[in-house]
């Protein structure tokens, strides 16, 4: 800590005071939240490249809503059998956490199916998959008004105070997801770029598509309980969009997306402390700044062409 105080610019940043406490002094309290934010940003920004390339932004939005409905349903069932919200919350991993993951994974498997029906489009199904669970979740919250605060705490996350258990689950999920992606990188890219050719060449396209969506669903359902649905969705979409406007190499896009995501998480967390802002929206807004270089690059390219 003394070393940090001796680094010129860093010490100025760390010693900013808020409500009689410097950021450096608050670090022991905030460290789990910061680590969870960084881990979520890292893995979500990585997966976000697939989300953008496969044009499935609204699949991730629908999965996060269905995952939230899983949490709400766990509370509804528990309260129906006479349990109190605090009991349900304390058995998080076997209760709402589990239902959230199960709901998200079932949704991912369903959404991985290709829709061939002409009367209803994929967009319509995704819209229904987003709106219906959102409405049902609000109804459950209304029904369980006494437990609403406990449910909202899980649904919308609390980026500042994250339990050690939750952080552990987050890290294990991130490592497992990234390992799967490292091992099946070729398969995910080929089946995402050109599923028909991949199938014709003998690849198990449907299986790889399902695995890819399951990793996204698993990450979303675990992450929204750490930092909330809005920042998770933002980390899935914004850093990858920013990265893809800046490079012509796929690996660079993954790398830039992760750098943007982690930077936005750290800067957003810091700014939320300094200016007493809500952490999730602060991280989201910070991520938005990374869209500026890509936007400028596009403008310059258009100007050169005209």
């Amino acid at each position, binding site marked *: 800590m003394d070393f940090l105080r001796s680094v010129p610019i860093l010490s100025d940043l760390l010693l900013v005071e808020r409500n009689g406490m410097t950021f450096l002094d608050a670090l022991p309290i905030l460290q789990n939240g910061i680590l969870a934010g960084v881990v979520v940003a890292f893995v979500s920004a990585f997966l976000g490249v697939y989300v953008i390339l496969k044009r499935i932004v609204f699949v991730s939005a629908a999965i996060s809503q269905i995952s939230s409905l899983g949490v709400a349903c766990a509370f509804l069932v528990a309260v129906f059998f006479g349990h109190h919200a605090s009991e349900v919350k304390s058995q998080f991993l076997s209760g709402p956490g589990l239902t959230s993951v199960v709901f998200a994974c079932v949704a991912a498997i369903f959404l991985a199916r290709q829709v061939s029906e002409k009367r209803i489009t994929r967009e319509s199904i995704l819209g229904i998959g987003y709106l219906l669970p959102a409405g049902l979740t609000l109804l459950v919250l209304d029904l369980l008004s006494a437990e609403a605060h406990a449910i909202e705490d899980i649904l919308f996350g609390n980026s500042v105070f994250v339990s050690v258990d939750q952080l552990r689950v987050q890290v294990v999920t991130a490592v497992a997801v990234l390992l799967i992606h490292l091992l099946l990188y*070729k398969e995910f890219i080929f089946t995402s*770029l050109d599923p028909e050719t991949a199938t014709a*060449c003998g690849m198990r396209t449907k299986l790889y598509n399902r695995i890819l969506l399951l990793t996204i669903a698993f990450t979303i359902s675990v992450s929204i309980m750490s930092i909330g649905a809005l920042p998770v969705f933002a980390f899935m979409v914004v850093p990858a969009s920013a990265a893809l406007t800046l490079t012509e190499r796929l690996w660079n896009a993954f790398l830039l997306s992760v750098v943007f995501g982690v930077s936005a998480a750290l800067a957003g967390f810091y700014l939320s402390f300094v200016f007493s802002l809500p952490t999730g929206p602060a991280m989201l807004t910070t991520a938005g700044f990374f869209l500026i270089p890509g936007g400028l690059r596009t403008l310059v390219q258009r100007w050169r062409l005209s």
Partner: protein
Amino acid sequence: MPPLLQAHKLSIGYGGRPLLSDIDLSIEAGDWWGVVGPNGAGKTTLMKTLLGIIPALRGQIERRPGLSFGYVPQRGVIDDIFPLPALDVVVMGRYPRIGPCRPVTRADRDLALRYMERVGIAHLARKPFRSLSGGQKQRTLIARGLVPEPDVLVLDEPTDGMDLAGETGIMELISDLQRGSGRTLLMISHSLNLVANHAKRLMLINGDEGVFRTGMTDELLNGKTLEETYHLSVEVHSFAGRRFLFAHGSKDTKGKE
């Protein structure tokens, strides 16, 4: 030698609705097939069924054990949002051979480069695929189709939307590749004139009319079969060793529009 692929009483279509039924087909090693017919006739559906991309509604497809396919889709199916150099697109053709959880080796990349050289685009290896012209993209996809060194190469409308120079260049390339390797080729095309001068065998398809005919190009390219398939009066002429086809308008305008 047994055929590479045989179809018996095959029924093809989407969503349980048959487009064409009772297809019997046998594809031998070294054949060059042209697959022709009007728009919506079922050409692509048949090829996708033979490749296993979509399931057959009924009937059987027997493939020789270990039979491998290379597929060259219409270039428009590749989404330009992917930031990939042309070489990376070509190397993808090797992925099924490499297998899951194994890295791409230098040998795989060298082989991809050799095929890029073979189709005349080695100098574009590092260029983003999305920045290439239509003809260059098509050559990239042909190289990708060849790089797994498949027994059968299926090309879906390889000259679609190209100008005369692009069309001629691609057809010369495909002819060279077939002559050089003896590989079995199946080429879907709208252009009867192109197919007539390159393919040795034809599949004439019109799902609406239940037409499915196969045979040698010389035998099938006549006014009667073409009229049956296209509902047009078509004349076939030969000049300087090349075939020229001329259409003379619809035979049954009533009820066809």
